[in-house]
């Protein structure tokens, strides 16, 4: 019913969830650009994802073996990849802030602080366990399906179910 209503009134349909706390928690919907773009503007994100997907495979960070090596301290590879990515990210964001770099549409780049809540501890521990079992975080789940490990479709569906159950139980969980 919900979806139908939105489809019926795409222009006047208002944001149903106005709880900024809920939205900013996940850093989604917080960059409220007033600009309206046609769907094909999103193709650039497909290409960005494509490059990221190639990187995930070639760096072997989607490999269950590499994840086991990481958690058993048997290889530096994963630490090197994540560490180098973070350092590059820190420098990039520093440059963006320093030179007030704008988006390709000329809008100022906005960054939003993350609020601390206990979910980062409990959820973090649970996700860590899932990462060690599946050898995959969400990005690699999509990538693994692309590599031909089709059984990961089930793992992805299970992850969607996990997200749904979290949404369902959210009010009862400590945050």
């Amino acid at each position, binding site marked *: 019913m919900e979806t139908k209503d939105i489809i019926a009134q795409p222009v006047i349909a208002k944001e149903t969830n106005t709880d900024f706390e809920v939205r900013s928690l996940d850093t989604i919907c917080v960059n409220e650009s007033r600009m309206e773009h046609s769907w094909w503007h999103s193709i650039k994100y497909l290409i960005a994802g494509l490059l990221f997907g190639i990187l995930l495979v070639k760096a072997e960070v989607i490999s269950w073996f590499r994840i086991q090596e990481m958690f058993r301290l048997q290889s530096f590879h994963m630490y090197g990849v994540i560490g180098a990515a973070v350092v590059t990210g820190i420098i990039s964001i520093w440059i963006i802030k320093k030179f007030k770099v704008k988006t390709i549409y000329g809008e100022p780049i906005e960054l939003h602080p993350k609020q601390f809540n206990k979910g980062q501890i409990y959820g973090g521990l649970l996700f*860590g366990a899932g990462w060690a079992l599946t050898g995959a975080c969400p990005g690699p789940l999509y990538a693994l399906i692309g590599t031909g490990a089709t059984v990961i479709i089930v793992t992805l569906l299970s992850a969607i179910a996990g997200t749904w159950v979290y949404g369902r139980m959210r009010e009862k969980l400590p945050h």
Partner: protein
Amino acid sequence: MQFLEWIKQPWPWYVAGPLIGLVVPLLLIMGNKSFGVSSSLRHICAACIPADIPFFKYNWRKETWNLFFVAGILLGAFIATQWLNNGQPIAVNPKLANDLQQYNIHNYSSIVPVELFNWPSLLTARGFILLVVGGFLVGFGTRYAGGCTSGHAIMGLSNLQWPSLVATCCFMIGGFITANLILPVILNL
């Protein structure tokens, strides 16, 4: 053709790591998007099975960029596997290979152990726990934590957010405990 041969090899961390880090400014410059993958799972819930749950009642259409991004990941992985692959088995630390041998894991031809990651394996206890229970924990845990490796460990740390550092440390603690203490029991099932 030297170059093509070179990129077909696995890429070392000092090549792949910085390139992954560059996804952060790329998405920001493309349209003010914060790098993060696990949100896509929430958008899929919001789009397909919102079930009147407040957490899924938002305008997910504003976030379709994220769904394009994850579709791209799938496609990119396909391209890399089909055309940027030298067909060599994955090289792991001999200590790991030795450990895994006792659980009947010998095949290194694929990026994941084919003994575990196959359809019939879903019907075994160890396959079910790894693939289904593991997947559930990934989806539940990332949303509870408000992000995953990309959103917290890479994007959050790049923006010097201490809550992301807490989350990243917890990812690692959960992983260390599970991989070293719990996984050996599961692999023996």
